[in-house]
Protein backbone atom coordinates (compact mmCIF):
# COMPACT_ATOMS: atom_id res chain seq x y z
CA UNK A 1 0.00 0.00 0.00
CA UNK A 2 1.06 3.52 -0.66
CA UNK A 3 2.08 5.69 2.24
CA UNK A 4 1.46 9.41 2.18
CA UNK A 5 4.54 11.67 2.04
CA UNK A 6 4.49 15.44 2.27
CA UNK A 7 7.17 17.50 0.58
CA UNK A 8 9.18 19.56 3.06
CA UNK A 9 11.94 20.82 0.78
CA UNK A 10 12.64 21.04 -2.93
CA UNK A 11 16.11 21.65 -4.31
CA UNK A 12 16.80 22.40 -7.95
CA UNK A 13 19.73 20.29 -9.09
CA UNK A 14 19.95 21.42 -12.70
CA UNK A 15 17.80 22.80 -15.50
CA UNK A 16 15.51 19.76 -15.46
CA UNK A 17 16.18 18.03 -12.16
CA UNK A 18 14.82 18.55 -8.67
CA UNK A 19 15.35 16.73 -5.40
CA UNK A 20 12.30 16.33 -3.20
CA UNK A 21 12.74 15.86 0.53
CA UNK A 22 9.75 14.41 2.40
CA UNK A 23 8.43 14.57 5.92
CA UNK A 24 9.28 11.09 7.12
CA UNK A 25 11.69 8.20 6.71
CA UNK A 26 11.24 5.16 4.55
CA UNK A 27 12.33 2.66 7.11
CA UNK A 28 14.67 -0.12 6.15
CA UNK A 29 15.34 1.17 2.64
CA UNK A 30 18.72 0.30 1.14
CA UNK A 31 20.63 2.19 -1.56
CA UNK A 32 19.55 0.85 -4.97
CA UNK A 33 16.02 0.04 -3.87
CA UNK A 34 13.20 2.09 -5.30
CA UNK A 35 9.67 3.21 -4.58
CA UNK A 36 6.64 3.30 -6.84
CA UNK A 37 5.56 6.92 -6.57
CA UNK A 38 1.88 7.54 -7.19
CA UNK A 39 0.14 10.76 -8.12
CA UNK A 40 -3.61 10.13 -8.19
CA UNK A 41 -5.09 10.65 -11.66
CA UNK A 42 -1.57 11.02 -13.11
CA UNK A 43 0.15 7.66 -12.75
CA UNK A 44 2.71 5.65 -10.87
CA UNK A 45 6.42 5.30 -11.70
CA UNK A 46 9.56 3.89 -10.11
CA UNK A 47 12.11 6.21 -8.50
CA UNK A 48 15.36 5.32 -6.82
CA UNK A 49 15.54 6.06 -3.13
CA UNK A 50 18.06 8.89 -2.94
CA UNK A 51 17.87 9.05 0.83
CA UNK A 52 15.82 7.12 3.35
CA UNK A 53 15.71 9.26 6.47
CA UNK A 54 13.83 11.29 5.54
CA UNK A 55 12.82 9.94 2.14
CA UNK A 56 14.25 11.89 -0.75
CA UNK A 57 13.81 11.39 -4.48
CA UNK A 58 15.66 13.07 -7.32
CA UNK A 59 13.51 13.56 -10.39
CA UNK A 60 14.55 14.43 -13.94
CA UNK A 61 11.65 16.06 -15.80
CA UNK A 62 11.42 14.22 -19.09
CA UNK A 63 7.73 13.42 -19.58
CA UNK A 64 4.23 13.58 -18.15
CA UNK A 65 4.81 11.97 -14.77
CA UNK A 66 8.14 13.53 -13.90
CA UNK A 67 6.84 16.90 -15.03
CA UNK A 68 3.81 16.52 -12.79
CA UNK A 69 6.18 15.90 -9.90
CA UNK A 70 8.12 19.03 -10.84
CA UNK A 71 4.93 21.08 -10.60
CA UNK A 72 4.52 20.16 -6.91
CA UNK A 73 5.34 22.56 -4.08
CA UNK A 74 6.43 22.21 -0.50
CA UNK A 75 3.38 20.96 1.44
CA UNK A 76 2.07 18.93 -1.48
CA UNK A 77 1.77 15.18 -1.12
CA UNK A 78 3.14 12.20 -3.01
CA UNK A 79 2.16 8.59 -2.35
CA UNK A 80 4.76 5.85 -2.46
CA UNK A 81 4.93 2.10 -1.94
CA UNK A 82 8.11 0.22 -1.21
CA UNK A 83 10.96 -0.11 -0.58
CA UNK A 84 10.97 -2.44 -3.56
CA UNK A 85 13.55 -4.62 -5.24
CA UNK A 86 17.11 -5.61 -4.44
CA UNK A 87 19.56 -2.82 -3.74
CA UNK A 88 23.35 -2.56 -3.63
CA UNK A 89 25.30 -4.50 -1.00
CA UNK A 90 28.76 -3.23 -0.09
CA UNK A 91 31.48 -5.75 -1.02
CA UNK A 92 35.01 -5.20 0.25
CA UNK A 93 36.30 -1.84 1.51
CA UNK A 94 37.23 0.18 -1.58
CA UNK A 95 34.40 0.98 -3.92
CA UNK A 96 34.06 2.51 -7.36
CA UNK A 97 30.70 4.14 -8.07
CA UNK A 98 29.72 5.02 -11.63
CA UNK A 99 26.67 7.13 -12.34
CA UNK A 100 24.92 8.56 -15.36
CA UNK A 101 21.79 10.74 -15.31
CA UNK A 102 19.58 10.24 -12.25
CA UNK A 103 21.73 7.17 -11.47
CA UNK A 104 23.88 9.32 -9.22
CA UNK A 105 20.97 9.56 -6.74
CA UNK A 106 21.11 6.01 -5.37
CA UNK A 107 24.93 6.12 -5.62
CA UNK A 108 25.12 9.15 -3.35
CA UNK A 109 22.99 7.24 -0.84
CA UNK A 110 25.41 4.30 -1.24
CA UNK A 111 28.50 6.52 -0.92
CA UNK A 112 27.27 7.94 2.37
CA UNK A 113 26.74 4.45 3.69
CA UNK A 114 30.21 3.28 2.60
CA UNK A 115 31.98 6.35 3.96
CA UNK A 116 30.16 6.07 7.27
CA UNK A 117 31.38 2.46 7.48
CA UNK A 118 34.96 3.73 7.13
CA UNK A 119 35.38 2.47 3.57
CA UNK A 120 36.92 4.42 0.71
CA UNK A 121 34.98 5.45 -2.33
CA UNK A 122 35.86 6.68 -5.83
CA UNK A 123 33.13 8.15 -7.99
CA UNK A 124 32.86 8.63 -11.76
CA UNK A 125 30.02 10.76 -13.06
CA UNK A 126 29.14 10.92 -16.72
CA UNK A 127 26.85 13.41 -18.48
CA UNK A 128 26.28 15.04 -21.83
CA UNK A 129 27.25 18.56 -20.87
CA UNK A 130 28.23 20.46 -17.76
CA UNK A 131 24.58 21.39 -17.29
CA UNK A 132 23.62 17.72 -17.03
CA UNK A 133 26.07 16.84 -14.26
CA UNK A 134 24.15 16.05 -11.09
CA UNK A 135 25.08 16.03 -7.38
CA UNK A 136 28.80 16.49 -8.02
CA UNK A 137 29.24 18.75 -5.01
CA UNK A 138 27.18 16.53 -2.80
CA UNK A 139 29.68 13.69 -3.28
CA UNK A 140 32.56 15.79 -2.05
CA UNK A 141 30.71 17.85 0.54
CA UNK A 142 31.50 17.29 4.18
CA UNK A 143 28.25 18.88 5.26
CA UNK A 144 25.95 15.98 5.68
CA UNK A 145 22.97 18.22 6.28
CA UNK A 146 23.26 18.90 2.60
CA UNK A 147 22.16 15.39 1.73
CA UNK A 148 21.27 13.47 4.86
CA UNK A 149 21.36 10.45 2.73
CA UNK A 150 20.67 7.44 4.88
CA UNK A 151 19.04 6.00 7.93
CA UNK A 152 20.44 7.08 11.24
CA UNK A 153 22.80 9.66 9.76
CA UNK A 154 20.59 12.67 10.29
CA UNK A 155 22.74 13.96 13.12
CA UNK A 156 26.18 13.36 11.65
CA UNK A 157 27.57 16.80 11.02
CA UNK A 158 30.80 16.21 9.21
CA UNK A 159 31.32 13.02 7.29
CA UNK A 160 34.49 12.55 5.25
CA UNK A 161 33.79 12.84 1.55
CA UNK A 162 34.71 10.43 -1.21
CA UNK A 163 38.38 9.97 -2.11
CA UNK A 164 38.27 10.85 -5.75
CA UNK A 165 35.51 12.25 -7.92
CA UNK A 166 35.94 12.35 -11.68
CA UNK A 167 33.50 13.96 -14.04
CA UNK A 168 33.29 13.28 -17.75
CA UNK A 169 31.10 15.15 -20.23
CA UNK A 170 30.55 14.24 -23.85
CA UNK A 171 31.34 17.81 -24.94
CA UNK A 172 34.09 18.40 -22.41
CA UNK A 173 32.23 21.31 -20.86
CA UNK A 174 33.07 19.95 -17.41
CA UNK A 175 35.76 17.46 -16.37
CA UNK A 176 37.21 15.12 -18.95
CA UNK A 177 35.80 14.91 -22.44
CA UNK A 178 34.43 11.66 -23.79
CA UNK A 179 32.74 8.67 -22.26
CA UNK A 180 32.62 7.91 -18.57
CA UNK A 181 34.00 4.43 -19.25
CA UNK A 182 37.38 6.01 -19.95
CA UNK A 183 37.34 7.60 -16.51
CA UNK A 184 36.34 4.26 -15.05
CA UNK A 185 39.33 2.55 -16.73
CA UNK A 186 41.58 5.21 -15.26
CA UNK A 187 40.09 4.85 -11.80
CA UNK A 188 40.54 1.08 -11.89
CA UNK A 189 44.18 1.47 -12.84
CA UNK A 190 44.77 4.13 -10.21
CA UNK A 191 43.35 2.00 -7.46
CA UNK A 192 41.65 -1.28 -8.12
CA UNK A 193 38.27 -1.33 -6.35
CA UNK A 194 36.86 -4.37 -4.56
CA UNK A 195 33.63 -3.83 -6.44
CA UNK A 196 32.11 -1.53 -9.06
CA UNK A 197 28.57 -0.16 -8.57
CA UNK A 198 26.67 1.61 -11.30
CA UNK A 199 23.34 3.12 -12.14
CA UNK A 200 22.51 4.91 -15.37
CA UNK A 201 21.34 4.48 -18.93
CA UNK A 202 21.41 0.97 -20.38
CA UNK A 203 24.29 1.61 -22.86
CA UNK A 204 26.48 2.75 -19.97
CA UNK A 205 25.65 -0.39 -18.00
CA UNK A 206 26.30 -2.65 -20.97
CA UNK A 207 29.71 -1.04 -21.51
CA UNK A 208 30.54 -1.32 -17.81
CA UNK A 209 29.51 -4.96 -17.66
CA UNK A 210 31.98 -5.73 -20.43
CA UNK A 211 34.72 -3.68 -18.81
CA UNK A 212 34.29 -5.29 -15.40
CA UNK A 213 34.34 -8.75 -16.92
CA UNK A 214 37.61 -7.90 -18.69
CA UNK A 215 39.08 -6.77 -15.38
CA UNK A 216 37.42 -9.67 -13.51
CA UNK A 217 35.98 -7.15 -11.09
CA UNK A 218 32.85 -7.93 -9.06
CA UNK A 219 30.16 -5.51 -10.17
CA UNK A 220 26.66 -4.53 -9.21
CA UNK A 221 24.65 -2.78 -11.91
CA UNK A 222 21.22 -1.26 -11.48
CA UNK A 223 19.01 -1.83 -14.54
CA UNK A 224 16.04 0.09 -15.77
CA UNK A 225 12.84 -1.23 -17.29
CA UNK A 226 9.22 -0.36 -17.77
CA UNK A 227 7.55 -1.26 -14.51
CA UNK A 228 3.94 -1.98 -13.86
CA UNK A 229 3.23 -4.10 -10.79
CA UNK A 230 6.68 -3.71 -9.22
CA UNK A 231 5.93 -6.96 -7.42
CA UNK A 232 7.39 -9.62 -9.66
CA UNK A 233 4.00 -10.71 -10.94
CA UNK A 234 3.03 -9.10 -14.24
CA UNK A 235 6.24 -9.95 -16.10
CA UNK A 236 6.39 -6.58 -17.80
CA UNK A 237 9.84 -5.61 -16.60
CA UNK A 238 11.78 -8.37 -18.30
CA UNK A 239 14.78 -6.92 -20.14
CA UNK A 240 14.94 -7.34 -23.88
CA UNK A 241 16.86 -10.32 -25.17
CA UNK A 242 19.69 -8.28 -26.71
CA UNK A 243 20.48 -6.35 -23.54
CA UNK A 244 20.32 -9.54 -21.54
CA UNK A 245 22.71 -11.28 -23.84
CA UNK A 246 25.37 -8.60 -24.07
CA UNK A 247 25.21 -8.00 -20.32
CA UNK A 248 25.00 -11.66 -19.35
CA UNK A 249 21.71 -11.28 -17.51
CA UNK A 250 19.91 -14.57 -16.79
CA UNK A 251 16.74 -15.39 -18.72
CA UNK A 252 13.56 -14.67 -16.81
CA UNK A 253 15.29 -12.12 -14.56
CA UNK A 254 12.79 -9.51 -13.34
CA UNK A 255 14.12 -5.97 -12.96
CA UNK A 256 11.43 -5.01 -10.43
CA UNK A 257 11.97 -7.82 -7.97
CA UNK A 258 15.17 -9.73 -8.74
CA UNK A 259 16.71 -6.32 -9.44
CA UNK A 260 17.04 -3.52 -10.18
CA UNK A 261 20.57 -4.30 -8.97
CA UNK A 262 22.21 -7.41 -10.41
CA UNK A 263 25.42 -8.59 -8.85
CA UNK A 264 28.21 -10.43 -10.67
CA UNK A 265 31.03 -11.89 -8.63
Amino acid at each position, binding site marked *: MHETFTITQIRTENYRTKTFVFDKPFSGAQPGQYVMAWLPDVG*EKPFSIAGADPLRLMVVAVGPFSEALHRLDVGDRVWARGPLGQGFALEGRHHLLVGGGYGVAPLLFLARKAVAAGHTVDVCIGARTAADVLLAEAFVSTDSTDFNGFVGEKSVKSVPSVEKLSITTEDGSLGGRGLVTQAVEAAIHARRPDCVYACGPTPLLVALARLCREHTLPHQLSWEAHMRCGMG*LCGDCELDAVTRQVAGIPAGWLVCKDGPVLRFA
Partner: protein
Amino acid sequence: MPDVTCHFLNLTLRNPIILASGILGTSADLLERAAREGAGAVTAKSCGPTPRAGHPNPVAVDWGHGLINAVGLSNPGAAEEARMLAEARARLEPLGVPLIASIFAGTTAEFGEVARTITAARPHLIEVNISCPNVADEFGTPFAASCESAAAVTEAVKRNVGDIPIAVKLAPNVPDIARIAAAVVEAGADAITAINTMPGMVINADAGRPVLSNRIGGISGPALKPIALRCVYQIARTVRVPIIGTGGVTTGRDAAEMLLAGATAVGVGSAMWTRGVGALGDIAAELAVWMGQAGYGTLEEIGVRSEE
Protein backbone atom coordinates in the same frame (compact mmCIF):
# COMPACT_ATOMS: atom_id res chain seq x y z
CA MET B 1 8.76 -39.26 1.37
CA PRO B 2 5.21 -39.04 0.05
CA ASP B 3 4.64 -39.05 -3.68
CA VAL B 4 3.28 -35.70 -4.91
CA THR B 5 2.84 -36.79 -8.51
CA CYS B 6 -0.37 -35.31 -9.79
CA HIS B 7 -2.56 -37.05 -12.33
CA PHE B 8 -4.58 -34.40 -14.05
CA LEU B 9 -6.69 -35.57 -16.99
CA ASN B 10 -4.22 -37.28 -19.32
CA LEU B 11 -1.27 -35.34 -17.88
CA THR B 12 1.25 -36.36 -15.28
CA LEU B 13 2.60 -33.46 -13.22
CA ARG B 14 5.59 -34.00 -10.95
CA ASN B 15 3.65 -32.03 -8.34
CA PRO B 16 0.24 -30.36 -8.20
CA ILE B 17 1.48 -26.76 -8.03
CA ILE B 18 0.56 -24.87 -11.19
CA LEU B 19 1.70 -21.36 -12.07
CA ALA B 20 -1.57 -19.41 -12.29
CA SER B 21 -2.44 -17.40 -15.38
CA GLY B 22 -1.31 -13.80 -15.53
CA ILE B 23 1.60 -14.21 -13.19
CA LEU B 24 4.94 -14.34 -15.02
CA GLY B 25 3.39 -16.16 -17.95
CA THR B 26 4.24 -13.45 -20.47
CA SER B 27 7.28 -15.01 -22.12
CA ALA B 28 8.89 -18.34 -22.82
CA ASP B 29 11.75 -17.29 -20.54
CA LEU B 30 9.47 -16.65 -17.61
CA LEU B 31 7.44 -19.81 -18.16
CA GLU B 32 10.68 -21.76 -18.26
CA ARG B 33 11.88 -20.05 -15.11
CA ALA B 34 8.66 -20.97 -13.27
CA ALA B 35 9.17 -24.56 -14.38
CA ARG B 36 12.80 -24.58 -13.27
CA GLU B 37 11.81 -23.12 -9.92
CA GLY B 38 9.60 -26.11 -9.31
CA ALA B 39 6.11 -25.74 -10.78
CA GLY B 40 4.32 -28.94 -11.73
CA ALA B 41 2.77 -27.15 -14.71
CA VAL B 42 2.75 -23.56 -15.94
CA THR B 43 -0.03 -21.39 -17.31
CA ALA B 44 0.62 -18.56 -19.73
CA LYS B 45 -1.01 -15.18 -19.26
CA SER B 46 -4.43 -14.93 -20.89
CA CYS B 47 -4.31 -13.84 -24.50
CA GLY B 48 -7.10 -12.39 -26.60
CA PRO B 49 -7.77 -11.90 -30.29
CA THR B 50 -5.65 -8.75 -30.72
CA PRO B 51 -2.84 -6.98 -28.84
CA ARG B 52 -3.88 -4.98 -25.76
CA ALA B 53 -1.75 -2.56 -23.74
CA GLY B 54 -3.72 -3.02 -20.56
CA HIS B 55 -4.49 -0.34 -18.01
CA PRO B 56 -2.16 2.47 -16.95
CA ASN B 57 -0.38 2.39 -13.58
CA PRO B 58 -1.14 1.75 -10.75
CA VAL B 59 -2.14 -1.75 -11.82
CA ALA B 60 -1.45 -3.70 -8.62
CA VAL B 61 -0.95 -3.15 -4.91
CA ASP B 62 -0.70 -5.12 -1.72
CA TRP B 63 -3.41 -3.83 0.61
CA GLY B 64 -2.34 -5.80 3.66
CA HIS B 65 -4.51 -8.90 3.51
CA GLY B 66 -4.12 -9.65 -0.15
CA LEU B 67 -3.44 -8.01 -3.48
CA ILE B 68 -5.61 -6.18 -5.92
CA ASN B 69 -4.78 -5.88 -9.60
CA ALA B 70 -6.20 -4.53 -12.78
CA VAL B 71 -3.48 -5.22 -15.27
CA GLY B 72 -6.17 -5.16 -17.91
CA LEU B 73 -5.36 -8.27 -19.89
CA SER B 74 -2.35 -6.78 -21.61
CA ASN B 75 -1.26 -9.32 -24.22
CA PRO B 76 0.33 -9.53 -27.65
CA GLY B 77 -2.69 -11.03 -29.46
CA ALA B 78 -3.33 -14.66 -30.31
CA ALA B 79 -1.02 -15.00 -33.30
CA GLU B 80 2.05 -13.71 -31.46
CA GLU B 81 1.03 -15.66 -28.36
CA ALA B 82 0.90 -18.89 -30.37
CA ARG B 83 4.53 -18.33 -31.43
CA MET B 84 5.56 -17.66 -27.83
CA LEU B 85 3.70 -20.74 -26.63
CA ALA B 86 5.32 -22.95 -29.24
CA GLU B 87 8.74 -21.83 -28.07
CA ALA B 88 7.73 -22.26 -24.43
CA ARG B 89 6.46 -25.74 -25.13
CA ALA B 90 9.75 -26.72 -26.71
CA ARG B 91 11.66 -25.41 -23.72
CA LEU B 92 9.39 -27.09 -21.18
CA GLU B 93 9.39 -30.46 -22.95
CA PRO B 94 12.79 -31.57 -21.61
CA LEU B 95 11.75 -30.47 -18.12
CA GLY B 96 8.63 -32.61 -18.26
CA VAL B 97 6.47 -29.65 -17.29
CA PRO B 98 3.15 -29.32 -19.14
CA LEU B 99 2.16 -26.00 -20.66
CA ILE B 100 -1.29 -24.51 -20.17
CA ALA B 101 -2.44 -21.75 -22.50
CA SER B 102 -5.04 -19.23 -21.39
CA ILE B 103 -7.45 -17.36 -23.61
CA PHE B 104 -10.11 -14.67 -23.35
CA ALA B 105 -12.28 -12.86 -25.86
CA GLY B 106 -15.15 -10.44 -26.19
CA THR B 107 -17.62 -12.69 -27.97
CA THR B 108 -18.37 -16.38 -28.11
CA ALA B 109 -17.23 -16.55 -31.72
CA GLU B 110 -13.94 -14.80 -30.92
CA PHE B 111 -13.32 -17.31 -28.12
CA GLY B 112 -13.49 -20.02 -30.76
CA GLU B 113 -11.08 -18.17 -33.04
CA VAL B 114 -8.52 -17.48 -30.34
CA ALA B 115 -8.73 -21.11 -29.26
CA ARG B 116 -8.10 -22.27 -32.82
CA THR B 117 -5.09 -19.97 -33.22
CA ILE B 118 -3.57 -21.07 -29.93
CA THR B 119 -4.11 -24.73 -30.71
CA ALA B 120 -1.32 -24.46 -33.27
CA ALA B 121 1.17 -24.25 -30.39
CA ARG B 122 -0.10 -27.57 -29.01
CA PRO B 123 -0.39 -26.58 -25.33
CA HIS B 124 -1.25 -29.53 -23.07
CA LEU B 125 -4.36 -27.78 -21.80
CA ILE B 126 -6.22 -24.63 -22.75
CA GLU B 127 -7.67 -22.59 -19.93
CA VAL B 128 -10.68 -20.54 -20.92
CA ASN B 129 -10.77 -17.33 -18.92
CA ILE B 130 -14.42 -16.31 -18.85
CA SER B 131 -13.98 -14.53 -15.56
CA CYS B 132 -11.60 -11.60 -15.80
CA PRO B 133 -13.08 -8.83 -13.64
CA ASN B 134 -10.94 -5.98 -14.91
CA VAL B 135 -12.31 -5.46 -18.36
CA ALA B 136 -16.02 -5.44 -17.67
CA ASP B 137 -16.41 -1.87 -18.90
CA GLU B 138 -15.35 -2.94 -22.33
CA PHE B 139 -16.69 -6.44 -22.43
CA GLY B 140 -19.86 -6.22 -20.30
CA THR B 141 -20.75 -8.78 -17.67
CA PRO B 142 -18.23 -11.62 -17.73
CA PHE B 143 -19.30 -14.82 -19.40
CA ALA B 144 -18.86 -16.61 -16.07
CA ALA B 145 -21.94 -14.77 -14.75
CA SER B 146 -24.53 -17.04 -16.30
CA CYS B 147 -24.87 -20.70 -17.16
CA GLU B 148 -25.95 -19.92 -20.70
CA SER B 149 -23.04 -17.66 -21.67
CA ALA B 150 -20.51 -19.87 -19.86
CA ALA B 151 -21.79 -22.95 -21.68
CA ALA B 152 -21.85 -21.18 -25.04
CA VAL B 153 -18.20 -20.16 -24.73
CA THR B 154 -17.26 -23.65 -23.63
CA GLU B 155 -18.89 -25.20 -26.68
CA ALA B 156 -17.33 -22.67 -29.04
CA VAL B 157 -13.86 -23.34 -27.67
CA LYS B 158 -14.33 -27.08 -27.56
CA ARG B 159 -15.24 -27.14 -31.27
CA ASN B 160 -11.93 -25.46 -32.13
CA VAL B 161 -9.30 -27.27 -30.12
CA GLY B 162 -9.35 -30.79 -31.51
CA ASP B 163 -8.04 -33.22 -28.91
CA ILE B 164 -6.58 -30.62 -26.54
CA PRO B 165 -8.48 -30.66 -23.26
CA ILE B 166 -9.89 -27.44 -21.88
CA ALA B 167 -10.37 -26.07 -18.37
CA VAL B 168 -12.92 -23.30 -17.88
CA LYS B 169 -11.92 -20.67 -15.33
CA LEU B 170 -14.82 -19.50 -13.16
CA ALA B 171 -15.56 -16.32 -11.22
CA PRO B 172 -16.39 -16.19 -7.50
CA ASN B 173 -18.94 -13.38 -7.75
CA VAL B 174 -21.92 -15.49 -8.66
CA PRO B 175 -24.70 -16.72 -6.39
CA ASP B 176 -24.13 -20.39 -7.15
CA ILE B 177 -20.79 -21.33 -8.71
CA ALA B 178 -21.65 -25.04 -8.76
CA ARG B 179 -24.45 -24.39 -11.24
CA ILE B 180 -22.05 -22.59 -13.57
CA ALA B 181 -19.61 -25.46 -13.21
CA ALA B 182 -22.31 -27.99 -14.05
CA ALA B 183 -23.26 -25.98 -17.13
CA VAL B 184 -19.72 -25.80 -18.52
CA VAL B 185 -19.07 -29.48 -17.83
CA GLU B 186 -22.31 -30.31 -19.58
CA ALA B 187 -21.07 -28.17 -22.48
CA GLY B 188 -17.84 -30.14 -22.72
CA ALA B 189 -15.34 -28.68 -20.27
CA ASP B 190 -12.73 -31.27 -19.33
CA ALA B 191 -11.72 -29.47 -16.16
CA ILE B 192 -12.51 -26.41 -14.07
CA THR B 193 -10.17 -23.75 -12.78
CA ALA B 194 -11.57 -22.05 -9.69
CA ILE B 195 -11.28 -19.23 -9.07
CA ASN B 196 -10.36 -16.01 -10.75
CA THR B 197 -9.95 -12.90 -8.62
CA MET B 198 -12.88 -11.35 -6.72
CA PRO B 199 -13.82 -7.83 -7.86
CA GLY B 200 -12.88 -5.24 -5.28
CA MET B 201 -11.67 -1.72 -4.75
CA VAL B 202 -8.90 -0.30 -2.62
CA ILE B 203 -9.24 3.33 -1.67
CA ASN B 204 -6.52 5.54 -0.27
CA ALA B 205 -8.34 7.79 2.17
CA ASP B 206 -5.68 10.53 2.18
CA ALA B 207 -5.58 10.64 -1.58
CA GLY B 208 -9.37 10.43 -1.63
CA ARG B 209 -9.16 8.09 -4.61
CA PRO B 210 -9.27 4.43 -5.57
CA VAL B 211 -5.68 3.29 -5.90
CA LEU B 212 -5.93 1.44 -9.21
CA SER B 213 -6.22 3.54 -12.35
CA ASN B 214 -9.05 1.19 -13.31
CA ARG B 215 -10.62 1.86 -9.88
CA ILE B 216 -11.98 -1.69 -9.70
CA GLY B 217 -9.64 -4.65 -9.69
CA GLY B 218 -9.41 -8.30 -8.76
CA ILE B 219 -8.60 -9.43 -5.24
CA SER B 220 -6.10 -12.26 -4.89
CA GLY B 221 -3.83 -13.64 -2.21
CA PRO B 222 -4.68 -14.54 1.41
CA ALA B 223 -8.05 -12.74 1.50
CA LEU B 224 -9.23 -14.86 -1.41
CA LYS B 225 -8.38 -18.24 0.07
CA PRO B 226 -11.57 -19.03 1.99
CA ILE B 227 -13.66 -17.89 -0.97
CA ALA B 228 -11.69 -20.17 -3.29
CA LEU B 229 -11.89 -23.12 -0.88
CA ARG B 230 -15.66 -22.74 -0.67
CA CYS B 231 -15.99 -22.54 -4.46
CA VAL B 232 -13.79 -25.59 -5.01
CA TYR B 233 -15.72 -27.49 -2.36
CA GLN B 234 -19.07 -26.70 -3.94
CA ILE B 235 -17.86 -27.50 -7.45
CA ALA B 236 -16.22 -30.77 -6.40
CA ARG B 237 -19.50 -31.93 -4.89
CA THR B 238 -21.38 -31.16 -8.10
CA VAL B 239 -19.25 -32.20 -11.06
CA ARG B 240 -16.79 -35.05 -11.58
CA VAL B 241 -14.05 -33.26 -13.55
CA PRO B 242 -10.70 -32.33 -12.05
CA ILE B 243 -10.36 -28.85 -10.56
CA ILE B 244 -7.37 -26.54 -10.49
CA GLY B 245 -7.99 -24.90 -7.11
CA THR B 246 -6.62 -21.37 -7.21
CA GLY B 247 -6.78 -18.48 -4.79
CA GLY B 248 -4.61 -17.42 -1.88
CA VAL B 249 -2.38 -20.47 -1.74
CA THR B 250 0.86 -19.28 -0.11
CA THR B 251 2.17 -22.36 1.71
CA GLY B 252 2.17 -26.13 1.41
CA ARG B 253 -0.47 -26.21 4.09
CA ASP B 254 -2.69 -23.92 2.01
CA ALA B 255 -2.20 -26.31 -0.91
CA ALA B 256 -3.28 -29.18 1.33
CA GLU B 257 -6.45 -27.28 2.23
CA MET B 258 -7.17 -26.81 -1.46
CA LEU B 259 -6.75 -30.52 -2.12
CA LEU B 260 -8.95 -31.31 0.88
CA ALA B 261 -11.61 -29.00 -0.53
CA GLY B 262 -11.65 -31.18 -3.61
CA ALA B 263 -9.03 -29.77 -5.99
CA THR B 264 -6.87 -32.10 -8.07
CA ALA B 265 -4.17 -29.50 -8.71
CA VAL B 266 -3.40 -26.13 -7.13
CA GLY B 267 -2.85 -22.79 -8.85
CA VAL B 268 -0.42 -20.32 -7.31
CA GLY B 269 -0.03 -16.67 -8.28
CA SER B 270 0.13 -13.91 -5.69
CA ALA B 271 2.33 -15.93 -3.33
CA MET B 272 5.24 -15.06 -5.59
CA TRP B 273 5.03 -11.44 -4.46
CA THR B 274 5.95 -12.36 -0.91
CA ARG B 275 7.95 -15.53 -1.53
CA GLY B 276 9.47 -15.05 -4.98
CA VAL B 277 9.29 -17.43 -7.93
CA GLY B 278 10.85 -20.10 -5.73
CA ALA B 279 7.50 -20.26 -3.94
CA LEU B 280 6.32 -22.71 -6.60
CA GLY B 281 8.85 -25.40 -5.72
CA ASP B 282 8.84 -24.50 -2.04
CA ILE B 283 5.08 -24.93 -1.74
CA ALA B 284 5.32 -28.32 -3.44
CA ALA B 285 8.06 -29.35 -1.02
CA GLU B 286 6.11 -28.11 1.99
CA LEU B 287 3.10 -30.04 0.81
CA ALA B 288 5.15 -33.21 0.68
CA VAL B 289 6.41 -32.65 4.22
CA TRP B 290 2.89 -31.99 5.47
CA MET B 291 1.62 -35.13 3.75
CA GLY B 292 4.30 -37.14 5.47
CA GLN B 293 3.32 -35.77 8.87
CA ALA B 294 -0.38 -36.20 8.21
CA GLY B 295 0.09 -39.75 7.00
CA TYR B 296 -0.74 -39.37 3.33
CA GLY B 297 1.30 -41.32 0.78
CA THR B 298 -0.21 -39.86 -2.40
CA LEU B 299 -2.40 -36.96 -3.48
CA GLU B 300 -5.21 -39.38 -4.27
CA GLU B 301 -5.38 -40.36 -0.61
CA ILE B 302 -6.08 -36.75 0.32
CA GLY B 303 -8.91 -36.64 -2.15
CA VAL B 304 -10.41 -39.81 -0.77
CA ARG B 305 -10.21 -38.75 2.84
CA SER B 306 -11.77 -35.38 2.11
CA GLU B 307 -14.84 -37.03 0.67
CA GLU B 308 -15.54 -39.11 3.73
